[in-house]
């Protein structure tokens, strides 16, 4: 699991209108820091309950905080995309994650999120707590998940040219420069259909997670031009497109025993008694003509 993913970070961070498009690209696999060992103690709730004495122990620990309904709706659709009704994981290419965690901005930490729109620039101050990520969960990809609430019906299809700049506030010491990251992307979609936009921030989050940051505090400025990129675009705040503070989505590869490993199931298949014929065997016909290969085979 320490090898870099095939895709590496050579792909410019794109924007995925989710959840129709399955997340597909790979990103460098990250070894979560030692500090994550605390997270290791927090067994996934399913196993915690199975190892405790029956569900009563869990009832007392029902989730303290109820998740955001939009986030829940998104994850239910991700579930439908990733597993059958009976809960059997679907195997489709590029589906390398066996864990996806969705964090909503931490409200109870007193920071909540400050939200202001000035001259078309939408700024929000976010704090995410990543304590639930265990030391054995390796980051594959991370995205900011924006959901668009359009209060006024707007033309069915429109083009946004957006600039996203993210600053990491480092509480510890104001001395070290806050890591900033900005990316521009154009976004064309039918707002009426797609309520979600995934913005890939893996390359931004990578150094933060690699330095064992359990609290990710970022200021996000979101500016959108509306119009046709080819024509002259003018800065204007899309008609009443209010941006709900984004959630943070982490696609992870859990390397613990209890997690399902796709490469393992592939490996399992290769254990089946299918002999791999050496290329120089008489049965393999180099001209690729199967029939001939078979007739040779019969003769051999």
């Amino acid at each position, binding site marked *: 699991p320490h090898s870099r993913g095939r895709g590496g970070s050579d792909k410019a961070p794109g924007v995925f209108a989710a959840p129709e498009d399955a997340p597909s690209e790979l990103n460098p696999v990250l070894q979560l820091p030692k500090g994550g060992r605390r997270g290791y103690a927090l067994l996934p709730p399913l196993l915690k309950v199975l190892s405790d004495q029956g569900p009563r122990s*869990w009832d007392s620990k*029902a989730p303290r905080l109820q998740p955001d309904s939009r986030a829940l709706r998104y*994850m239910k659709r991700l579930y439908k995309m990733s597993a059958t009704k009976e809960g059997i994981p679907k195997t489709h290419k590029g589906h390398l994650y066996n864990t996806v965690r969705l964090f909503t901005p931490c409200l109870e930490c007193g920071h909540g999120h400050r939200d202001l729109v000035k001259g078309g620039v939408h700024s929000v101050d976010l704090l995410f707590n990543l304590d639930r990520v265990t030391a054995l969960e390796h980051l594959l990809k991370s995205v900011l998940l924006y959901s668009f609430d359009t209060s006024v019906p707007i033309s069915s299809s429109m083009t946004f040219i957006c600039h996203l700049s993210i600053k990491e506030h480092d509480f510890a010491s104001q001395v070290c420069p806050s890591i900033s990251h900005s990316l521009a992307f154009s976004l064309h979609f039918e707002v009426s259909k797609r309520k979600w936009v995934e913005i890939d921030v893996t390359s931004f989050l990578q150094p933060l997670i690699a330095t064992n940051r359990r609290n990710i505090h970022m200021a996000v400025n979101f500016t959108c031009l509306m119009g046709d990129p080819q024509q002259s675009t003018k800065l204007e705040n899309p008609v009443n497109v209010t941006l709900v503070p984004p959630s943070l989505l982490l696609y992870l590869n859990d390397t613990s*025993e209890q997690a*399902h490993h796709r490469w393992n199931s592939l490996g399992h298949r290769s254990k089946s008694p299918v002999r791999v014929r050496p290329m120089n065997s008489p049965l393999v016909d180099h001209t690729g003509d199967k029939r001939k290969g078979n007739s040779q085979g019969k003769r051999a």
Partner: protein
Amino acid sequence: SRQRRNENVKAAPPTSPYNLSEYFKQFVFPQNECELHNFRLSFSQLKWDKWIIAPHRYSPQYCQGDCPRAVGHRYGSPVHTMVQNLIYEKLDPSVPKPSCVPAEYSPLSVLTIEPDGSIVYKEYEDMIATKCTCR
């Protein structure tokens, strides 16, 4: 050998149909032979539906039944299983007979709400029994 066969035929008394069925009984596999049984639960029965969002129903299945004496090829059991059966039959009945247990599993995807309110999709290994064996 022909002479011995003739002698044997003379020796063996004609078996009545009743004895015949008794005679074959020792080869028939046990009625409730070791096999996979269906079991389906919903997380609401366990009152876990507060934090397990999906799937709503889960079929872990289970293995139950007697292990026949000739387990070799049928269950892919190791030779040790037959040795254990012999020990139980011939040497020490306090040694348990081989048990009917799962041999293969399939994974399960679960969508849960964590105590801090975050949501996690996870794929767990070995959550559904798909094949039984005698061990």
